[in-house]
C-alpha cells in the first residue's frame, strides 16, 4: 500500500555498516521504500511541487549515493535519518546550482568578479569562526532544551536521543499518544527556532 511507505525505516536496523550481499539487497529495498519521504523532503527544500522533475532527479541521486555509500552507515545508525540527511544535501546542492545558473544567465555579458571566483573554491573544513559559531549554537540548543517544560523535554530526549517511538514514550510516561505528539512537536519547534537564530542577523 502506498500510504504505508512514509513509515519505513523509522528504527535502527542493526549492523548495516558491515554488509553481506543479502543485507545489501535488503538495504536497497529499504532505501527504495523511503522514496515518497525523500520526494517530500526534496520538494520542500527545492520549493517545488513533489511531481517536479528536479525532485525526481534529487531522489535518484540520493538513492545512488545511499547505495554506493552504504558502507559508511555506522552500526545502529537509523537508515531513515541517514538518507534524509543525504537528500537534504543533494536538494540543497541542486537549489544552489539552480541559483548559480540563474545568476550566470543574468550576468552573462558582465566580466567575472573576484568574488565569483572565490565562490567556486570548495570548503575543505570549517573555519575557526564556523567552529566558534557551532559551539555557540550547541550552547544555545542546550539552553533551549533546558528551558522546555520537564515532560516536554523528557519526551524530546526519549524520541531524539533514545530512539523510542511515540507509543513507547506514551506508555513510559503514562500519557496518550496525542499528548506525546504535541509535546514533541512543540519541543521540536522551539529547538528548530533556536537553530534558525544562527542564520538571522
Amino acid at each position, binding site marked *: *500500500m*502506498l*500510504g*504505508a*511507505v*512514509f*513509515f*519505513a*525505516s*523509522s528504527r535502527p536496523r542493526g549492523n548495516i555498516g558491515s554488509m553481506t550481499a543479502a543485507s545489501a539487497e535488503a538495504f536497497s529495498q529499504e532505501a527504495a521504500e523511503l522514496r*515518497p*519521504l525523500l*520526494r*517530500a*523532503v*526534496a*520538494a*520542500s*527544500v527545492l520549493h517545488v*511541487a*513533489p*511531481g517536479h522533475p528536479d525532485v525526481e532527479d534529487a531522489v535518484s541521486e540520493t538513492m545512488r549515493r545511499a547505495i554506493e555509500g552504504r558502507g559508511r552507515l555506522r552500526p545502529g545508525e537509523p537508515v*531513515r*535519518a541517514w538518507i*534524509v*540527511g543525504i537528500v*537534504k544535501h543533494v536538494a540543497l546542492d541542486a537549489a544552489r546550482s539552480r541559483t548559480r545558473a540563474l545568476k550566470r544567465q543574468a550576468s552573462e555579458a558582465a566580466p567575472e568578479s573576484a568574488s565569483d571566483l572565490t565562490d567556486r573554491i570548495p570548503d575543505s573544513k570549517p573555519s*575557526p569562526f564556523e*567552529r*566558534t559559531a557551532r*559551539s555557540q*549554537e*550547541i550552547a544555545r*540548543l*542546550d539552553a533551549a*532544551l533546558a528551558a522546555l517544560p520537564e515532560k516536554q523535554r523528557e519526551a*524530546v*530526549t526519549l*524520541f*531524539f*536521543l533514545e530512539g523510542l*517511538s*511515540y*507509543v513507547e514514550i*506514551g506508555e513510559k510516561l503514562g500519557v*496518550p*499518544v*496525542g499528548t506525546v*505528539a*504535541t509535546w*514533541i*512537536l512543540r519541543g*521540536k*519547534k522551539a*529547538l*528548530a527556532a533556536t*537553530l534558525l537564530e544562527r542564520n538571522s542577523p
Partner: protein
Amino acid sequence: MKLTEAETWEGEHLSELALSCIADAQDVVDPVARVHAESCAECTLRIGALALESHDVGAALKVAKSLSIEKAKASQRFPTVLVAAAVIVAAVCGAPALLDAAPRAIAWIYAAPRVLPVLAMSFVAASKSLSGPSGAAVSLVATFALALIGFAVARASRTSGVTS
C-alpha cells in the same frame, strides 16, 4: 494507539500534529490520513519540511550530547588523585632538605639589602654592553622564542577545545 479524528484533521488537510507524526515515521494516524498524505501535494510538502526539521533537530541534539560526553570524559581524564598523591610524596620527601635550607634562606634575607643593589647595577651594566650586534642577536632570539611560545599557546588552547 492512534491520534483522534480531531487531532488528525484540520479542514480538508491533515493537522500539523498528524503531519509531524508522519514525518517522524510514527504509525499513529489512521489509514485514510496516510493515503491523503501521499496524494495531497500540499501535505506532502509540509511533511518534507517537518521531516527536515526533525532531522536537523535530532542531528544537533546528538552532536550536543556527544560534545557534553566528551567534555565530561575530558574532565574525568585529569588524574586529580594521582597528582595530589605526588604532591604529598614530594612535600614529605623534600621536607628535610627544606629544613636544612631554612638557616641559609634566613641568612640570605638578611643579606638581601646589600646584594640586591649590586645585582641591579650588574644588570644595568650588562644591558648597556648588549647594544650593537650582540643586542640585535638577543632581540632576534627573544622574538623567535616569543613566536614559539605563541604557537604553543595557540596549540594548547585549540586542543583544550577553546575554539571547537
